[in-house]
């Protein structure tokens, strides 16, 4: 599996927090002065101050200013160091890169420290220049002895400040750490916004390999199935099931085709079933339900009916034939077959 090359990314994203002073370290390199050289220069200047028996008041003010700047620089350096550590902790542990010259966190930390010292020295130099200019006037106004006391007081103040700085260094670091504690999540969020992690994981991560390493049995051993089932509301699930649709999609025909009816019947004890049936009672009920006399009457009646109808129709035809013959012999019109109401007998009907 390929490692995600966050630290080695050639193009630095825009949302990377750039520490102030990172560019200044190059300026410093251009000046040809390293961090050690700066420290040595500081020590030399201290020796010079110690060597002078009566330093000028301006130089004391400059020393105070320089000390303040150093305190700020220390604070800044501590913050920069903590930020570098925080950044390094978010990166993959690789000895070669952690110790290599390309470690961006180390570079950032060094840049922060160098920038802080450079800023402090630049400020101190400027203050010394001002003090050298204004110093004679101040000396003229102030008595030399008083000036010497003031210089000693200033040196004491600087030492106090230095002690205070050292005493509060831990507190400063802690404050910086808490500041970074809130800063790092923001950075991570900014990174997440820029990088499509889902696509990245899909592209780079072999999920199948991970799944192969997963011990499913161990996971299942830890799952309390009964508890899960207890939490499932079966009734609600059943209520949400569309039974009509389910029944429609149910392959009844297929199931029926697969059923071996002969085998089912072969396994059925028909004699036992018949023994349990009260056939006599069933027969009586059936006979009670069927109006047998009516059936016999109707069936025999239907048979006789056809014969009777035939006889009747033939009788009708014979009646008509006889009537026509008689009427023809008697030479008269057709008969009045419709009985009149009331059909009173008339004289001409006498036999």
């Amino acid at each position, binding site marked *: 599996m390929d490692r995600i090359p966050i630290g080695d990314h050639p193009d630095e994203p825009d949302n990377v927090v750039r520490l102030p002073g990172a560019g200044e370290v190059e300026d410093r390199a251009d000046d040809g002065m390293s961090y050690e050289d700066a420290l040595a220069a500081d020590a030399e200047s201290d020796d010079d101050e110690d060597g002078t028996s009566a330093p000028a008041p301006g130089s004391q003010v400059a020393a105070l200013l320089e000390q303040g700047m150093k305190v700020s620089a220390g604070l800044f350096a501590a913050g920069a160091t903590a930020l570098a550590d925080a950044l390094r902790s978010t990166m993959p542990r690789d000895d070669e890169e952690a110790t290599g010259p390309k470690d961006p966190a180390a570079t950032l930390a060094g840049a922060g420290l160098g920038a802080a010292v450079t800023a402090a020295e630049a400020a101190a130099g400027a203050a010394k220049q001002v003090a050298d200019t204004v110093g004679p006037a101040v000396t003229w106004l102030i008595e030399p002895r008083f000036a010497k006391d003031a210089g000693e007081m200033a040196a004491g103040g600087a030492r106090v400040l230095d002690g205070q700085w050292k005493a509060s260094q831990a507190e400063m670091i802690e404050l910086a750490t808490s500041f970074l504690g809130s800063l790092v999540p923001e950075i991570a969020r900014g990174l997440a916004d820029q990088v499509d992690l889902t696509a990245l994981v899909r592209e780079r991560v072999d999920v199948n390999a991970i799944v192969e390493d997963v011990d499913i049995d161990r996971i299942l051993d830890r799952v309390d199935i009964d508890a899960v089932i207890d939490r499932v509301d079966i009734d609600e699930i059943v209520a949400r099931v569309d039974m009509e649709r389910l029944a429609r999609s149910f392959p009844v025909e297929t199931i029926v085709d697969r059923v071996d009816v002969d085998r089912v019947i072969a396994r059925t004890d028909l004699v036992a079933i018949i023994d349990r049936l009260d056939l006599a009672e069933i027969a009586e009920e059936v006979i009670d339900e069927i109006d047998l006399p009516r059936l016999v009457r109707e069936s025999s009646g239907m048979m*006789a009916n056809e014969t009777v109808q035939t006889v009747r129709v033939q009788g009708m035809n014979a009646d008509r034939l006889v009537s026509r013959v008689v009427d023809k012999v008697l030479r008269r019109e057709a008969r009045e077959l419709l009985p009149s109401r009331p059909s009173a007998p008339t004289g001409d009907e006498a036999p």
Partner: protein
Amino acid sequence: MSGAAATSMRAFPAGAAERQGLRAGVVSRTGAMVIDIAYVGVLVAAGYAAYAGFRFLRKPAQFTFPELAMAEAAVYGYVVAVLILTISWTGTGRSAGARVMGLRLLGPAGARVGLVRAFLRAVTCVAFPLGLFWSAVSKRNASVHDVIFGTSVVYDWHDQVPEARTDDAPTG
């Protein structure tokens, strides 16, 4: 033998439906009369057999078939026929023979005949059965008895019995 005609006939053969209610001819009526005579003969024979059986059960040892002269049998038959015809005509309007042939006797108003008219007509018919054949000549298919009592015999295959007449006075 006459019970077969008791069933209802919902579908009539071709030519039968439109002739329902018309006066019947001599052939159908003669057929009905023959059936009635046979029916009466069977009844008389059954009565004779019943009487013989009764005698057998009463005195089996001395059992002999009862002697029945033809004249005596004719009298019995005459009585039986009058009774049967009277009851049939006042009831449904048709005797056993008329039921088989699909005929019905109607009174002067087209209704059932009354008891007196039916009885007198039955007596007349049994006494003078040949009067039936006047229907072959009559323009209205009327027999002598129809002429006397103002009745008429029609084709009626329906089971529905017409209303009874209220005025039962025989005419003629």
